[in-house]
């Protein structure tokens, strides 16, 4: 492991991980901006409430799916 190349003290894997995390983070931030902008332009009073409902139920389905898959695979 001693011969592993580093850039500014970080390994390539660490930089890739940071890049992807940052990319997904930027994507999420951009989506939030679009949501805010759409709500403003459409004069839809409770669009934020809808997004909240939607994301929560989506997350719940994801969590349940993950639990079921883990059980089925016997993990």
């Amino acid at each position, binding site marked *: 492991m001693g011969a592993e190349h580093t850039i500014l003290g970080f390994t390539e894997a660490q930089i*890739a*991980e940071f890049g*992807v*995390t940052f*990319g*997904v983070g930027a*994507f*999420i931030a951009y*989506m*939030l901006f*679009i*949501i805010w902008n*759409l*709500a403003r*332009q*459409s*004069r*839809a*009073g*409770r*669009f934020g*409430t*809808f*997004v909240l*409902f*939607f*994301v929560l*139920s*989506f*997350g719940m*389905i*994801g969590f349940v*799916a*993950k639990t079921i*898959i*883990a059980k089925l*695979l016997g*993990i």
Partner: protein
Amino acid sequence: MTPDDREPLPVRTIGFTRPLTWLAQGWRDFGRAFGPSLLHGFIVMLGGLAILTVALHAWPILPGAFSGFVLMGPILATGLYELSRRLALREHPRLAHAIGAWRRGTRSLVWLGLWLAIAATLWVALSVVLVWNFVDAPVASLDDFLRHFVVMSRWWVFPLWVLAGALGAAVVFAATAVSVPLLLDRRIPLRRAILTSVRAVGENPGAMALWAALIMAAIALSLLTMMAGFAFAVPVIGHATWHAYRDLVDTDGVPPRQ
């Protein structure tokens, strides 16, 4: 473009359980336009099977490919909206009507389709990068994929993917909930149709969240039945979307397309 063209159309408030009525109406239209409707379902089912076949050979595209495929749904259902429109006019719906709606394909519909295709492609790319970077184990089957991406990867990878997907899906759902049937039915600019759709969702957050959940459940069941469910889910939801549009949007004062 007049200032009016940038304003969303007026929308109506509906009861929380109204989406269940849309499903019943969608089911009724499916029965009345059975042949051409079922054909739409079969085409989507075959598309899903084709994606599954490709994705199993290039597993990092699997999560993105499926969710991206779903994004195209509102456009794929264009023919179904037209069949429901003809039924509402007391005409006998025929396959030629559905094909006609595609051929008429106004510029707005083409733009919206392009926009959705770009969103779907970006989403596939983002998912591939995520899977590529964070799944170290060899993946040779669907079982391996579920084991390593969904369950065993670092704890935050799957939730982060779900959160990003949920936000993107919420935007696409709101923008297309009623905009495609509206574009097909009335002479209206794309931007105004999308803002109207978002407004309809924002004025009815509970009912539209229920509608989104029903659609998600139908998609999940279709995936669990190895795409067979799409043959029925696509026609029913497509026709139901037409009724959602009629219930939610007040189109008085906007000229019809024909």
